[in-house]
């Protein structure tokens, strides 16, 4: 870590990192505590949307200041993760609907 960071900046970065981690943790706990698959599918997107966004923002601010030039490659990770996770979740949801219908679970049918 760099030694001579201004106080207000380290507070800002700390707040962003802790809040981001808290939101991600809430999502992960949701994965454990919610009772069925279709509720649990909402949990991972907390980490990829706001939780991850805040941590990556903190990282971008920190490296931009310590290197004295804008560092925005965090933006690439954010864009990639926010776009790809919904794709995975949609595929997973369709697979799950398909399997539940085959086994006669209580899910909405196709085209009725």
């Amino acid at each position, binding site marked *: *870590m760099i030694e001579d960071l201004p106080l207000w900046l380290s507070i800002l970065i700390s707040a962003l990192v802790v809040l981001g981690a808290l939101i991600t943790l809430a999502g*992960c706990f949701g994965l454990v505590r919610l009772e069925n698959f279709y509720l649990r599918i909402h949990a*991972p997107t907390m980490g990829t949307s706001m939780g991850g966004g805040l941590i990556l923002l*903190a*990282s971008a601010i920190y490296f931009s200041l310590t290197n004295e030039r804008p560092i925005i*490659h965090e933006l690439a990770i954010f864009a990639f993760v926010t776009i790809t996770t919904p794709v*995975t979740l949609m595929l997973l949801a369709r697979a799950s609907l398909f399997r539940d219908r085959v086994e006669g679970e209580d899910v909405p049918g196709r085209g009725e």
Partner: protein
Amino acid sequence: MSVDILHWSLLIAQIMLGLGMLATVYRMIVGPRAQDRILALDALYVVALLLLITLGIRTNSQVYFELAMLIGLLGFVGTVALAKFLMRGEVIE
């Protein structure tokens, strides 16, 4: 002073992310069905990626960024392949 604040808050954040990873691993082991396990895997790699970013801030090194990108790419391809497999029982259609 300001280094201390950053140090402790990063530690707290890393502990929270570590707990989050444990939670996803629990769901991966317990299941009960294959789609729950894949969902947990999806969350696990995202949290691991975020943990690497906080490690990067702690050590003031940008090497972790490359690792995070790699985890993101491989995690996405892996979970999509698994989800595809669940749908039809075949990866390539």
